[in-house]
């Protein structure tokens, strides 16, 4: 507390503070820009929910492909390994940029050109790579005797995965999954580079037209409104598991 108090004192008494306060924390500017930023934030929320659902499915598919053992599925294992390596290794902003500007430039009919859809696809691909690895870790943490026991009582391989391994695996990785979703919730702002008016972009427009940063602070608060409850949920969840 003392350290925080000292820090606050140093900041508030610094020479540049009045300037910073006017630029970043002006109440009138905040009130003026908030409705527009909130409007943009709805797009973030919608995109987040849809992408999250898609990531949960695609990530699981990738994880299952990576841990498959049938020799005939080797190409699938190879592909999913490459997919994870590439998409996890490239900064998310570049994935968004390359897909968002690259796909429409192909001029192929039938491909989406809507920037929100393209951005959603890019985020889904990037996050599926991470989430696939989380799932995989979860699945591999389930002791092999579980599967052996399932097979022994007469379940098929698929049934053993579906009813014995996955339920345990997913419960174990729920906290890291939620952690990735907090991260995704912030990264939906990256879609702004493709043109849609989501919260960050709206804030940036307000900031640039008036030479103030308060709208960006307003946008930051909105993100916190979603990510902080998510983080508390995560904590609660982990406590209950112990």
């Amino acid at each position, binding site marked *: 507390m003392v350290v925080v108090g000292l820090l606050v004192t140093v900041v508030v008494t610094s020479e*540049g503070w009045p*300037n*910073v306060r*006017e*630029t*970043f924390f002006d109440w009138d500017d905040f009130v003026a820009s908030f409705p527009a930023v909130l409007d943009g934030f709805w797009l973030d929320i919608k995109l987040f929910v849809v992408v999250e659902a898609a990531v949960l499915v695609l990530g699981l598919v990738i994880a299952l492909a990576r841990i498959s053992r049938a020799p005939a599925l080797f190409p699938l294992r190879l592909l999913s390994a490459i997919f994870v390596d590439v998409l996890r290794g490239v900064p998310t902003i570049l994935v968004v940029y390359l897909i968002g*500007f690259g796909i*429409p*430039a192909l*001029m192929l009919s039938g491909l989406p*050109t809507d*920037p929100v859809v393209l951005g959603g696809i890019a985020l889904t691909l990037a996050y599926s790579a991470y989430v696939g690895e989380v799932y995989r870790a979860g699945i591999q943490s389930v002791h092999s005797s579980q599967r052996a026991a399932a097979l022994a009582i007469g379940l098929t391989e698929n049934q053993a995965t579906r009813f014995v391994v996955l339920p345990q695996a997913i419960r174990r990785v729920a906290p890291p999954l939620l952690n990735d979703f907090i991260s995704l919730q912030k990264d939906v702002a990256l879609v*702004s*580079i*493709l*043109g*849609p*008016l989501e919260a960050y*972009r709206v804030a*940036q*427009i307000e*900031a*640039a*037209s*008036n*030479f*103030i*940063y308060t709208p960006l602070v307003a946008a930051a608060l909105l993100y916190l409104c979603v990510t902080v409850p998510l983080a508390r949920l995560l904590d609660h969840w982990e406590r209950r598991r112990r």
Partner: protein
Amino acid sequence: MQRFVLLRVIALLSGGAAACGSDDGGEEQPAAAPTEESGAAGTVPATDSCEPGQLPLLREGTLIVGTDKPAYPPYFEDDDPTNGKGFESAVAYAVADELGLPADKVEWAVVPFNASFAPGPKKFDFDINQISISKKRAERVDFSNPYYTAPQAVVALKDSPAASASSLGELADAKLGVQVGTTSLDAVTELIAPTTQPQVFNDSNDTVRALKGKRVDAIVVDLPTAFYLTAAEVPEAKITGQFDAPGGDDWGLVLAKDSELTECVNLALDALESSGELDEITDKWMGGQAGAPELR
């Protein structure tokens, strides 16, 4: 309109104060500038310091000019502000020359638009980057007097319906693209009021790429940019027409708030304007703009 009138008055007053000082030739300084003038400008004009050698510069004897990178034609050529080619490069060197600083005393700093108005110490003496003057912005930075007034232009792909629009109203159904932080965005939302939200891009490159990729039907840019784009970058597009931005669009040099250099820069711009040099520079780099039809 009110805000622009007010701004002009401020600019005139501060410019006037500076002009009085320079008549004294530097030997005799006015004891103090008349209070009403200094009050209106929000600064104490230190006109004596406009003499070469006494300029209030970041680094003595060197003028540091900021602009964004990449720097686009017709404002800069070859992405190289130091070559003196292009409208804003030429204006910057002309201002430097008026301030008594030859070209080899001018240095350029890369200043992204969003950094030009960040609080705290600036890394440039002035920034020249097609920045529009507004009263609200002037609360955070100093603007020089305007050195250019830019009309807006609609650039549309030749095969899109937007290309044949003859009024702003006909563009309401078009998918429009603009660059973030530009007057063009205000022009779109206030004057065209499109039925679908405009798409807003990070920089000029992305805006043009969206047009080329047919992600948007048309883009709105400053008229000189439109001439450059249709001539060099996007030959498959044409200028649908030009129109005035809401409240006019005057470009000014950006300086730190209450900078002592603002007076000197205004003095230099006034001199360039009255000698006709500013007009010459404008014609040389921004000329040939009569051909675009007016949109109403």
